[in-house]
């Protein structure tokens, strides 16, 4: 290709137009940039700073040393991962089935049923969590019905423990799993399934060799986002865990509220942030990040 003449007719004016257009676009995104800087970047930088300071303000690594020395932090971290993995696994099982059902239905019917998935999504987490408390507690609806029908004699401990927390979290996280899965299943051309069947694959083989691999991007996106959101959950373990379930966010809150120890809390927060970013970074090597977060409605 021939090099563009720098001094063709109107070259300077057109160049100036292009530059001013770019400034306009930048100007439009300025308010958003300011907001993000003010309420996200600044506090995180502050947190980061605090985690390296003594109460007097001198530089120290003691806060991170404490995370390593005190077994309670390791327990919290282990429990956080255990719950997050369990919830993600259950969301995959339940969400895949639900998304599959929705993807097979005519779009209009699927749209109506999708409202059922989204409705709780639009309800406050606090409200949903207390709703589960009502259902699961000692004299809650499930125990009353179970005893009345004779399934069990004594009230079951359904809440204020790991089980209750997982149930609540699964319910809250399910839409984040279903939406990307549903989108990725809708994108699977019916001809792929028909083609596989035509070539001799029975329903199970079609699923295993074709449908599952083709829905993997949705599975991956849903799994990643569910797991990351679980890591940071606070309200649900606080309410349904009855104090016995302390996840990372609860631990941090405890440090601040009970002991006013900002240093250790900040250090723990930084560790959690680093873990989250590491997972996101790893995930981004396998799938595009905008796909992971673009899975929503």
């Amino acid at each position, binding site marked *: 290709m021939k090099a563009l003449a720098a001094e063709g007719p109107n070259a300077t004016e057109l160049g100036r137009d292009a530059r001013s257009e770019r400034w306009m676009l930048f100007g439009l995104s300025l308010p958003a940039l300011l907001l993000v800087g003010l309420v996200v970047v600044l506090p995180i930088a502050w947190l980061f700073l605090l985690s390296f300071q003594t109460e007097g303000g001198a530089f120290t690594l003691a806060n991170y040393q404490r995370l390593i020395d005190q077994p309670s932090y390791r327990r919290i971290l282990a429990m956080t991962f255990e719950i997050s993995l369990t919830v993600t696994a259950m969301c995959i099982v339940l969400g895949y089935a639900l998304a599959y059902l929705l993807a097979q239905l005519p779009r209009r019917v699927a749209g109506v049923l999708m409202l059922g998935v989204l409705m709780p999504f639009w309800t406050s987490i606090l409200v949903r969590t207390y709703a589960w408390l009502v259902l699961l507690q000692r004299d809650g609806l499930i125990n009353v019905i179970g005893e009345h029908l004779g399934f069990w004699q004594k009230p079951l401990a359904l809440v204020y423990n790991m089980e209750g927390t997982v149930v609540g979290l699964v319910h809250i996280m399910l839409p984040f799993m279903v939406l990307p899965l549903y989108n990725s299943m809708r994108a699977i*051309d019916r*001809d*792929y399934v*028909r*083609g*596989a*069947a*035509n*070539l*001799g*694959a*029975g329903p199970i*083989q*079609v699923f295993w*060799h*074709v449908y599952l*691999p*083709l829905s*993997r991007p949705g599975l991956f996106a849903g799994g990643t986002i569910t797991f990351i959101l679980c890591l940071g959950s606070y309200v649900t373990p606080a309410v349904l865990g009855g104090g016995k379930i302390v996840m990372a966010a609860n631990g941090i809150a405890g440090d601040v509220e009970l002991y006013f120890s900002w240093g250790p809390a900040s250090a723990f927060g930084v560790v959690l942030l680093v873990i989250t970013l590491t997972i996101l970074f790893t995930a981004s090597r396998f799938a595009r990040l905008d796909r992971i977060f673009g899975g929503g409605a």
Partner: protein
Amino acid sequence: MTPSPTDARPQQKGLPIRVRQVSKTYGRAVALDQVDLDVQSGEFLTLLGPSGSGKTTLLMVLAGFVRPNQGSLHFGERDVLRLAPHKRGVGMVFQSYALFPHLTVAENIAFPLKLRRVPRPEAMRRVEAVLDLVQLPDFGGRGVDALSGGQRQRVALARAIVFEPGILLMDEPLSALDKQLRERMQIELRALHDRLGITTVCVTHDQREALTMSNRIAVIDRGSIIQLGTPKEIYDRPSTRFVADFIGESTFLPVTGSGGTFRLGAQALKLEGYTPPPGANLLMLRPERLALLPEGAPGPDPRYNVITGRVTDIVYQGESVLVQIRLDDGGTVAARVSSARAALGAVPVPGASARLAFAPEDMNLLCGEAG
């Protein structure tokens, strides 16, 4: 495919297909209306019709993806009507090709072999052989996304025939290709079919494709087979106005008469050797079958019918020139003159008088609505 000495498997003969009284309705819409069809062993049969005619529905019934409301269906001696698609053992080329994007070319082609538990070395050999056959050697390791449209088409074909099915179904196999490639693939598919002897049913709305590739064509409209015959029969002697309109260009002129004599205006048509269907009321003329007689030239063979008129318009269309002529007896016909002849001055100017000649085998009489 070059059969190696070890490849002693007998060439599987194509299976005949027998369709009887197959109907399919969607709500009130009738997609197939009591269709009967016999496809012979090794035949290349094309289902040709406009969109919504039911041709694809019929193909999907054969593949097992559409369950008809009634009827019977046999591949050879085998009743397959209620058999699931994966048990029918037919190859199929989808309009979208349906190549699995998460598998390589070789994995796609080996897919049906894997399902049939063909041992790996044997499967690899057959994949290579079939890739040679569709002229894509060394493409096995490529991803499907890296292929051009024509290459995908070949891979889809390779995958459909690698397990040596007795029947091959094709749903608009060439519609996604550009015109030049499409025409080349038509010839290739035809040659491949001749070589494999596999019974082939192809759906298309492209008349040229149907004429080029098929042994026989079934013209379908509104859920019924209107006419079934060789490309020549369908083109030369369409049985209805619909078929004549759908395949090729034609002009229709009303005729009167019955039995052995028909009149176009006052002129009796010479029919030597042609028996028109009873009750025929339309004369069908194809533009390229009308000979435009040069002015002052002697009359043609006495077998020919000669009609006269006046040139109203001349349209240059590249390889040919279309001449519109208003007949002295009323009505308008179009005659096609090749560009080569037009260059020699064989085309009169608008307003000039013209004489057109056609033999009995160049005309067709049929029943239908005039207009």
